[in-house]
């Protein structure tokens, strides 16, 4: 729990500070991991840690979710709210949509054909 308290504040500050380059992107494009099209390479923008329960937030950090990390949605379980499997770094991680909703992403530019 200590880690969460210590990390929450500074990290959220960093994300919402006007200097943060991700913020502009985040506002211009409100895509989250929940809505990111499947198999579309993207980068993690801001993560709204405050929306997550603290054990969830901690595990999310431990699995490597962080601003600027490459992410890709691999699978969605059934229509209507099943979990999402995504690639984060080199790992495949399953998470629920409510958590995915707290993670904003920006799609990488499409590679030139």
């Amino acid at each position, binding site marked *: 729990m*200590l*880690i969460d308290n*210590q*990390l929450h504040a500074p*990290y959220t500050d960093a994300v919402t500070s006007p200097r943060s380059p991700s913020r502009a992107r985040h506002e211009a494009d409100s895509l989250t991991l929940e809505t990111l099209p499947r198999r579309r390479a993207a980068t993690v923008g801001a993560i709204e840690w405050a929306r997550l*329960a603290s*054990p*969830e937030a*901690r*595990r*999310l*950090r*431990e*699995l*490597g979710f*962080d601003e600027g*990390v490459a992410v890709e949605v*691999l*699978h*969605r*379980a*059934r*229509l*209507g*709210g*099943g*979990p999402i*499997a995504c690639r984060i*770094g*080199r*790992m*495949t*991680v*399953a*998470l*629920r949509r*409510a*958590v995915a909703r707290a993670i904003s992403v920006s799609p990488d530019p499409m590679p030139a054909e």
Partner: protein
Amino acid sequence: MELPPLVAMVGNPNAGKSALFNALTGARQKVGNYPGVTVERHSGRLALDDGRPVELVDLPGAYSLDPASPDERVTRDVVTGAQAGERLPDALLVVVDASNLDNHLRFAMQLIALGLPVVVALNMVDLAERDGLVLDPAVLERELGVPVVPTVAVRRRGIDALRGQLTALVGGSPAAAGLRRLRASDGSVDDDIVTLQRRARVIATAATVSETPVRRWNHMLDSVALHPFFGPVLLVALLFVMFQAVFSWSEAPIGWIEGAFAALEAWLKGALPDGFLRSLLTDGVIAGVGAVVVFLPQILILFLFILVLEASGYMVRAAFLMDRVMAQVGLSGRAFIPLLSSFACAVPGIMATRTIEDEKDRLTTILIAPLMTCSARLPVYTIIIGAFIPARQVLPFVGLQGLVLFALYLLGIVGAFVAALLLRRTVTKGESSGFMMEMPKYQMPRLRDVGLGLWSRTEIFLKRAGTTIALTTVVLWALLSYPQAPAGQKQVDYSIAGRIASGLEVIVRPIGFNHDIALALIPTMAAREIAVAAIGTAYAIDDVEDASGEKGLVDQLRGRWSLPTALAFLMWFVFAPQCISTIAVTRRETNGWRWPLFMIGYLFAAAYVMAGITYWLAVAAGL
């Protein structure tokens, strides 16, 4: 006696620690328990290059030093020296998955920062190379400041080099002096995970020589296994094959075991004079133990499937597919794995709940696990169905007997879901927990690991059949045989057990249970499969004719029970928590008597009510 130096193996889940542990220690392994917790302690001996022995302990996989589960807590407490019953390790062997460096390095860095001597095993380098990833261990060594040895545990590559590094590391200086970063007295460690993670990513990138994206077969498998339509179809098909195999593959071995016991009985009857000893051995031990050992093949087939599904990495995919369903009753996909294991036996199932992080979630899963139709119920179901349900085809390929068995399985599942729903709204009320899980790469299950798993199950089962079950049936035999009934009186009614049963009969009479069932229910508290043995023993003693074989028992049942009684008896076994091992493991896992007592209470209540309803409905329907 001076203890050998202790080396602890630490790493993320799925880093291949166990395979490396097996490669380092071979057969010289010991499985114990940490005091006060039910986390298993795997340790083994290893001889260093200079001949000195070292004790190697394989710690549970963890993501960081901030524990989320009892397993992870043990890992943290051991490496910080806070674990009761374990000394501070003299060195750490940190295992990282070469193809998942950016994540595993973070935990490695956290461990290195503790200040103990460390050697890093860069494990599964072959799989990384297959994925097109070439790494430079020298860069890792420089950045981490500790020796790094590339290994392929399953092929024993790098094992000698690793042992060489350990030889240099262990015993050089008193290790305890090196522990420089133990902050709180409770062993907790504060680390900025995000900063460490970023640093880990930088190092991982620096150590990457080249990376060629290759089409990974892992993704191809997942695109079927996790497909919105084909995924669930595959899961149902796998479960169907599993349960089908339990019955069809086991037929032949069951025949062999039955034959062996029958031969043994015939031999004893010929070798011994009629009397006390012969009756004890044939009616007591062989009738009782034989009735139970017959089910070993089915139990092993079930465990074979579960071990293979687990080792291949498919189990996590199943959890993924089941999360939505489990969420409906307030659980998560994680609960699916322990619940599926509970179909084999609730004891390993309940132990597997340790991976569930949320306390309420875990407790709910423990409380409903005994409702999954465990293999110990099979003997009871099989005998009763065989005796009372006609072997009639209701549909092409669907027999009535199989349908009833399927319905009993289904009833257990539905019962468990209803129970979870109610529990989550009352006693285990709380925020619905999340579902977040790493999905490991698919792996070919290794024959040796599956074999070892099956062997340990066989050992446990036979030990139980040879001790608890044998003893219970012998005690029951004695209670049934004495005092000897005078002429004209029935032995079963006149005996001590019969008199106890007459007391219980008053309670169970309203739900259609007769004197024989009341008699069987008492020893069955030890284990469900005893029900068959107990009834078998009772009828063997009661009958002049030999009735200890299955054939005899079935005919006996048909003559003595009505159909509503048999149906009520089946329903009772769907719910009744008649298993001392389950109760004991629940007590251990929940640290006290409160939850096991609650479990016993609610399950017996459910069993009584459901058996009663079944009986009266069946009577009303004129069955």
